[in-house]
């Protein structure tokens, strides 16, 4: 009968995208540590 997919740790009703905090297929915790952000190169003042 399959599984209750709400038990996989993903907030399927979230208004935000899930992929931003998708940690890994093996964990039901959102991504930990520093969120993924990228500072544009030009921000790194020479």
């Amino acid at each position, binding site marked *: 009968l399959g599984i209750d997919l709400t038990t996989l740790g993903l907030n399927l009703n979230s208004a935000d995208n899930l992929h931003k905090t998708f940690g890994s297929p*093996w964990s039901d915790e959102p991504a*930990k540590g520093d969120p993924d*952000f990228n500072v*544009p190169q030009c*921000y790194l*003042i020479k």
Partner: protein
Amino acid sequence: DLGAIGDNLGGSSMTTGGMHDQFYNLQMLEAAFYKLPQPKDSERPRSYTPRHPAITPPSYPQVQAPIINNPALWDRLGLETYGTDTLFFAFYYQPNTYQQYLAARELKKQSWRYHRKYQTWFQRHEEPKVATDEYEQGTYVYFDFHVNNDDLQHGWCQRIKTEFTFEYNYLE
């Protein structure tokens, strides 16, 4: 070569279709099951190493408080009431950090725009006199560092620039 999907789905899709037989695949999978990537395998310490670390007494916190990376803090600091100095400080003195990224985001919300070539933030002082698809021209406020040669005064300030042309391909 993407079109090949249809072909290798012909009759053979229901077979392993791969280079090994099912038993081998299962054996290898079981071996891999005991060597799973661990959460720490993905953690990359974005350790922020200050270029010119200010020496502080040991009684001072020697590492930044975690709240400094909390977007909610920067949402608050971005409110008009707090002015922009904190944002500019984080932007110029905490390079390549999450807080720099958050400070930039707040500056953008206050209609500051980053000029990639001058590496300076500009804000319209009034509606631009000219605006085309490539650029806009007018009077702007910009955040700058100045050094006063005579009294050796120096520091950050906001200046007015008239007749400035902001070319959009320099807009970050």
